[in-house]
């Protein structure tokens, strides 16, 4: 029986983790995005993470076809999408089965009972119905016949086919969750108006189902309390929710505008980097030239050509694509042209785990080319700062005339978070080294004394005709040279040019403690996990643990050794088998470096990190 509940006072929570799971066609990504956007507008800090299969539409009801979206919202600083969940919304048995392990004991699971049919239970490999066999007794299970209630609520709406009706049950679930966390449906209703502009009956249907879910939760005795999460304390300013890949694309847009150059993207679709291509092709209004090439190699080749002709040129890819681009990247390094290669890392080796995250392309980025071929390597560390590091990658490549590899990963690329919008006016200046006319005794490889960057003479400029190429060149004239000493000299110059970038990047900062017993080190996309785990240690009174996170990998910040020297033990945490630890060991002798590695295609969990920190602190 349903009794209306009046005057409920929501209980106030600091933070909550919610995961929506269902079939890959159930609209879980949309449901999760709507909930996180609404919460962000409400003023919460948020972090999200989608988890979906690499099959586009895996067989319905199968375990491997489960698609999920996790969102962490809080009135406090949120730096990860969270590990274990407070609320699981499972649209089918397969979703329940594959995600139950993540639900905190005693916490809530909402299921669509209509989907718990004999057939679906079999597909999810359940021997008995978990809703009936007491296996969920440690959780608060809210059973809702969502499919039937959705159908019921749509009686009388004209012109809807069965499929449309069934598929809108995700909005029923969203409506329930909105009520539970004291959120308004306003943002989502506005979204329907825009998204289904030309289909008024679909707008009506979605609104009806959303409200039906909201009202159902309101009147349902099974939900004892509603919760609320107050707005978070954040820097004042204008914000928007941004996905890592979008932030990367926008960073390049900003850099192109600031440098006064046109942006050229040469790319080939590859998971999880393709969204950068999707984003940049939209922006022809800024004169962006986005060229989808026939393969990874043509992608980078076209970017090298555009760079030769004076564009800000980039190419985007993921691990296997970087392997294919290796030779061309060596050419860009050899001819000393600006070029940014974005590698959105995924699980490797080979095809690996395309939709999962990993940090295992670091050594490929560092060394994956023939010959002595150093390039600048940067790594973004949050969805929002993908913007800053894309911008910085463009700035460094243009000012130092050498390719830059920007590493992100599936976790931050697909994750989203609030981004305090940066106006281009507030971004640092970018100078380019384009030469407008010849000077006496001019050569293509004339260098800046400080950076060693060469000049950038572009085709179309009278008097600057010149030839460049992959063959070794004379240090002065730039003509082909096989002179042994010259080759060694040029090899050193190209290395020294990268080393000097140290003078133009910020020092490494330590968080939480300047000195102490344990320094936790990370790089790239693990920032959120590591930061929050070290913060937990601090919040629990441990004052001897510090945290240093690297965004600059090659070259390393100037003060790296000093930072390392201030702690008794060093723990390098990374989602690979110890690649950054290797780099530190190569560069710095005499430190006790311990590793914590995870290679499961998943981010670090809070508890496993804390356990590891405690282990080392006890010893």
């Amino acid at each position, binding site marked *: 029986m349903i009794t209306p509940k009046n005057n409920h006072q929501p209980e106030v929570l600091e933070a909550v983790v919610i995961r929506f799971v269902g079939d890959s066609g159930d609209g879980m990504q949309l449901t999760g995005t709507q909930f996180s956007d609404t919460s962000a*507008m409400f*003023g919460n800090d948020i972090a999200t993470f989608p988890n979906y299969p690499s099959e586009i539409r895996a067989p319905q009801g199968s375990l491997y076809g489960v698609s999920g979206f996790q969102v962490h919202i809080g009135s406090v600083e949120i730096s990860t999408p969270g590990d274990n969940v407070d609320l699981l919304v499972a649209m089918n048995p397969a979703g329940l089965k594959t995600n139950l392990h993540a639900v905190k004991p005693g916490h809530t699971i909402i299921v669509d009972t209509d989907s718990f049919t004999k057939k679906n239970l079999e597909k999810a490999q359940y021997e008995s119905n978990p809703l009936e066999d007491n296996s969920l007794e440690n959780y608060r299970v809210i059973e809702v016949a969502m499919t039937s209630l959705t159908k019921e609520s749509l009686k009388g709406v004209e012109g809807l086919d069965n499929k449309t009706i069934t598929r809108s049950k995700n909005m029923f679930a969203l409506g329930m969750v909105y009520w539970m966390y004291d959120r308004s449906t306003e*943002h989502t209703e506005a979204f329907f108006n825009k998204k289904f502009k030309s289909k008024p009956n679909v707008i009506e249907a979605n609104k009806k189902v959303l409200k039906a879910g909201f009202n159902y939760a309101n009147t349902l005795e099974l939900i004892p309390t509603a919760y609320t999460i107050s*707005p978070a304390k*954040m820097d*004042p*300013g*204008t*914000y*928007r929710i941004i996905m890592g890949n979008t932030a990367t694309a*926008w960073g390049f*847009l900003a850099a192109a*505008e600031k440098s006064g150059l*046109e942006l*050229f993207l*040469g790319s080939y679709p590859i998971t999880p980097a393709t969204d950068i291509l999707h984003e940049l092709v939209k922006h*022809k*209004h*800024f*004169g962006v*030239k986005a*060229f989808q*090439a*026939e393969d990874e*190699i*043509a*992608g*980078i*080749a*076209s*970017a*090298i*050509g*555009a*760079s*030769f*002709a*004076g564009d800000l*040129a980039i190419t985007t890819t993921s691990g296997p694509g970087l392997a294919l681009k290796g*030779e061309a990247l060596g*050419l860009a390094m050899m001819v000393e042209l600006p070029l940014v290669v974005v590698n959105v890392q995924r699980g490797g080796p080979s095809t690996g785990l395309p939709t999962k995250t990993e940090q295992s392309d670091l050594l490929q980025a560092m060394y994956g080319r023939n010959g002595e071929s150093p390039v600048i390597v940067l790594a973004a560390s949050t969805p929002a700062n993908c913007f800053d590091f894309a911008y910085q990658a463009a700035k460094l490549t243009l000012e130092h005339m050498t390719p830059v590899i920007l590493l992100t990963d599936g976790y931050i690329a697909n994750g989203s978070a609030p981004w305090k*919008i*940066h*106006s*281009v*006016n507030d971004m640092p200046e970018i100078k380019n080294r384009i030469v407008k006319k010849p000077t006496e005794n001019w050569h293509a490889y004339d260098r800046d004394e400080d950076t060693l960057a060469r000049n950038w003479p*572009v*085709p*179309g400029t*009278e*008097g600057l*005709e*010149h*030839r*460049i*190429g*992959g*063959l070794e060149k004379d240090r002065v004239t730039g*003509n*082909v040279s096989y002179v042994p000493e010259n080759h060694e000299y040029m090899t050193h110059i190209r290395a020294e040019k990268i080393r000097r970038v140290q003078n133009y990047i910020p020092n490494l900062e330590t968080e939480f403690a300047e000195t102490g017993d344990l320094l936790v080190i990370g790089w790239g996309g693990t920032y959120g996990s590591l930061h929050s785990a070290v913060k937990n240690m601090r919040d629990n009174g441990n004052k001897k643990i510090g945290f240093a996170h690297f965004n600059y990998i090659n070259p390393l910040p100037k003060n790296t050794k000093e930072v390392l020297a201030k702690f008794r033990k060093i723990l390098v945490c990374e989602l690979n088998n110890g690649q950054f630890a290797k780099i530190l060991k190569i560069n710095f002798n005499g430190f006790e470096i311990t590793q914590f590695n995870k290679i499961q295609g998943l981010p670090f969990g809070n508890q496993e990190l804390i356990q590891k920190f405690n282990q080392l602190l006890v010893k």
Partner: protein
Amino acid sequence: MATTAEKKYTFKDFASDQEVRWCPGCDDYVILRSMQKALPDMGVKKEDVVFISGIGCSSRFPYYMNTYGMHSIHGRAPGIASGVKLANPDLSVWIITGDGDAMAIGGNHFIHVLRRNIDLNIILFNNEIYGLTKGQFSPTSLVGQKTKSSPYGNIQQPFQPGELAIGAQARFFARIGGNSPKEMSKIFIESHNFKGTSLIEVLQNCVIFNDGCFKNVTDKAVREDKQLYLTHGEPMIFGKEKNKGIVLNGLKLEVVTIGENGITEKDILIHDAKEKDPTLHQMLVRLSYPIATGIIRAVDDITLEERMDALTAEVKVNSNFKKTDDLFFSGETYEVE
């Protein structure tokens, strides 16, 4: 299309200060010289000319031209040249490649660059052998050809470059002997004037590893009898006596003699390089006696950069986003106080 030069250049203006290092007697010298001679007549500014090459003997070409140039990596020149042209459509961009560079390691790029129709010029130095790696068979080597990597004779079926190119939708295809500098220069100019991707196959003799490979069709003594030099709008007549011609017999081209069996000049096919249907051009490309030279196909079509420009202009007019700030602050933003 590049802007017109006001200066009058001579071939010397296009020669770089670098010593040319091909083997003595190589046809590559002829190609280089023909290009240096053709460029002043193209009316293009020197600074607007870019040569992009891959790897191989032919690919040293850019070093010898006093223009902009890049000697890149094996097979990838089409990608690099595409980027150059899309970045700056005012440039006259040339790809220098060989049979291995274009059709083996760079095969994928070769077909796609032709399909897209960017206004690029490709000169394919076909010598039916790998020269720079010292004599292995290439994708155009003949079956049975003995090379260092086929000591008992090549067993791989070769590509016919023109056939592959037209199959990949090439709008412009020409073929010329490596010892015909005058015709070559003329074709280079036609190629430059043609809007779209043009491919010129040069039958280039390799004096060291495949000497005489085209001798039976390019030697001065036999050239007129063995080559059908095509001119748009002219009948397909060849031979020292100008008495041989081509007719269509069923689905095959046939050589006939004018004045024999009642054949008159009127029976001979007229060459139409501008015909969109590639059927007859493919038949000409495959012809082995005589072999077809000159401009076989030159079909006008819209280029990729024209489409790109039109699209960009349209989007720009209709968009509210003039600066990136307009985008960043658009849509669902919210204030934190």
